[in-house]
């Protein structure tokens, strides 16, 4: 049903007046006096932009873009025909080739961004196991990232253990942390779960921040070793440190591929199906003989392992860890990737990480506005595309959401 035009514009007018009333006191009341110019300038821009959007929407409702529909559809069909003919393995090969060739074609700055994107892909996929597959909303996921990072940092600084040995150790520690956090929350309803995991995330951060003797508090830990490797050189193998960004890129690429394969296998395994059963209808799953409590714990632990792996790499790459990297906003960021990309969908999460990490780098000049826009986009996405950019095929309604 189309809303009548006059009503639409009346609503627009009211909304803009309302908006100005909210904007002006923040920008225009100053101890020196009342001022209208700056707030009016901002307001004017917003009002003009939303008027344009509204007019476009109205034209679309009125059918002004109908002439575009046919060519657009034809284009989409042509594209589908082309991509449909390319076998999946070939497409994957192209992507893999591009990923391997990437550091040779680009420079330092791009390596840096690419490494960040890959770290977040691992985090996103790990959280995706918990949120997308098992349907448990986790707002403290970054805590596992922190546990992994600090595990390696301490092991490396105090005991000189190698990165590769610490990877599984950090994974285990994170999994244990996952179980500790998971256990008391298992019986809770969805939205309580959100707030409790948020609380746990904060507890981990506060403890790291204050346990001076172990973590050196807010000053962080310095002097973490990079990953080592044996490399064929002048007729013999010798030990080298993978210090430069190109080498680190390949380490994290390897970890990311491992994560993607692992999550993909998990998705289509017996356990993956059981996760989905729990997500869609817990009671029914239980009646079918699925041990829901154990499964949820497993989901937490598995998700945490990937967080721990990513954390280990993060510590090795930065050579420094401090509690500032593990705040709530990071958890929200990872969650936003999963949601933006499409819950439960692996390509979706990869797309989401690219969108949220790489895109803001392109608009470096607007750094300040990054989180502002990000919050707004998150709310708008829920309105227009709640299933994400690349929705998973097998997603239904979570049982507890039904009224």
């Amino acid at each position, binding site marked *: 049903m189309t809303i009548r035009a006059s009503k639409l514009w009346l609503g627009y007018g009211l909304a803009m007046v309302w908006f100005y009333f909210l904007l002006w006191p923040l920008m225009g*009341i100053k*101890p020196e006096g009342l001022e209208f110019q700056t707030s009016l300038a901002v307001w004017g821009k917003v009002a003009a932009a939303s008027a344009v959007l509204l007019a476009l929407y109205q034209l679309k409702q009125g059918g002004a873009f109908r002439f575009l529909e046919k060519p657009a559809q034809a284009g989409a069909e042509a594209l589908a025909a082309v991509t449909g003919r390319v076998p999946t393995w070939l497409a994957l090969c192209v992507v893999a080739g591009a990923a391997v060739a990437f550091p040779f074609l680009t420079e330092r700055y791009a390596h840096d961004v690419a490494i960040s994107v890959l770290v977040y892909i691992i985090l996103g996929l790990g959280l995706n196991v918990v949120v997308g597959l098992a349907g448990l909303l986790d707002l403290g996921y970054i805590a596992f990232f922190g546990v992994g990072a600090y595990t390696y940092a301490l092991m490396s600084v105090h005991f000189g253990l190698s990165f590769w040995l610490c990877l599984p150790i950090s994974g285990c520690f994170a999994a244990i942390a996952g179980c500790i956090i998971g256990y008391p929350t298992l019986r809770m309803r969805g939205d309580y779960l959100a707030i409790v995991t948020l609380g746990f995330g904060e507890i981990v951060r506060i403890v790291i*921040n204050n346990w001076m003797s172990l973590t050196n508090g807010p000053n962080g830990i310095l002097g973490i070793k990079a990953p080592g490797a044996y490399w064929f050189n002048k007729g013999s193998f010798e030990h080298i440190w993978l210090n430069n960004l190109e080498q680190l890129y390949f380490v994290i690429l390897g970890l990311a591929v491992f994560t993607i394969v692992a999550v993909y296998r998990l998705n289509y395994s017996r356990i993956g199906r059981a996760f989905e059963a729990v997500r869609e209808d817990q009671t029914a799953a239980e009646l079918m003989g699925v041990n829901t409590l154990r499964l949820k714990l497993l989901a937490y632990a598995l998700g945490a392992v990937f967080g721990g792996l990513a954390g280990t790499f993060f510590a090795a790459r930065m050579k420094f860890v401090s509690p500032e990297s593990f705040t709530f906003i990071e958890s929200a960021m990872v969650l936003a990737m999963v949601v933006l990309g499409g819950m439960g969908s692996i390509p979706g999460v990869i797309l989401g990480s690219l969108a949220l990490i790489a895109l803001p780098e392109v608009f470096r000049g607007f750094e300040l506005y990054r989180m502002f826009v990000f919050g707004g986009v998150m709310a708008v996405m829920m309105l227009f595309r709640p299933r994400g950019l690349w929705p998973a095929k097998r997603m239904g309604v979570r049982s507890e959401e039904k009224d």
Partner: protein
Amino acid sequence: MEFLLQQLVNGITLGGVYALVALGYTMVYGIIQLINFAHGEIYAAGGYMGVILISWLFSQGFPPAVCLGAALVLAMGYCAMLAMAVEKVAYKPLRQSSRLSVLLSALGMSIFLQNGLMLTQGVYDRAYPTEMVQGGFEFGGAVVSWMQVIIVGVTVLLLVALNLLVFKTRIGKAMRATAQDKTMSALVGINSNRIISLTFAIGAGLAAAAGIMVGLYYGSVRYDMGFVPGVKAFSAAVLGGIGNITGAMLGGLIIGMIEVLAAGYISSEYKDVFAFVILIAVLYFMPTGIMGENVDDTRV
């Protein structure tokens, strides 16, 4: 002994503030089952409106009492408008969507508002003109500042007013009816959208008052000041039994008291941890809270 008394006085002050914020969470959760993440930001916006208005009014030469009173009323009104706008834009269109969608929308709004505050007000602390109210009196060895008296006084006033509104007036009854059964309340002629909007406005007004009082108490506000108190106030709401107004007041007082006592006797670094631990313990051992009724969603 004197130390304990002093801590109790501080605890009541802080607890009252938490109670005010917790009410917003509990009322909104009671009526649309949403953890309104943006509520903490509304509280922060209240704190900022307070300092903006007080500074301006003070510079115009009004006496301190007028500045405080007018700033309080105007900031409450401002935040009510802000919360109604947030509800209308980000929550109302999602009324038929899954609960996860609304929750994420709320999270997005929280980030949006927090950064909006940062963009317009800057990243640094903004000092409150606390010199307006100075001094205090001694009471059994504990020092009670006039500021604390004002804070507790205003808090009590607002809590009483809210109780009267919710339990004695026609609109209050309609609010409770809508929380209990939306379809039936429509069948008796209650416009639930309007009631929901009103609930957001009232909760936001109380949060704004709390923001101002915290600004006065600690002497400054910051754009991200809403997050931690927000979670603590939500803990208070859960502790009291979510959806329960009396419970939220009680829960706020308990959380404030525990925080102050824990900071005084155990460790001030870990004081924030206690609120979270209490939240988790309450949800684990008595998920319906101390005043909880049938919160399990079998509301027919």
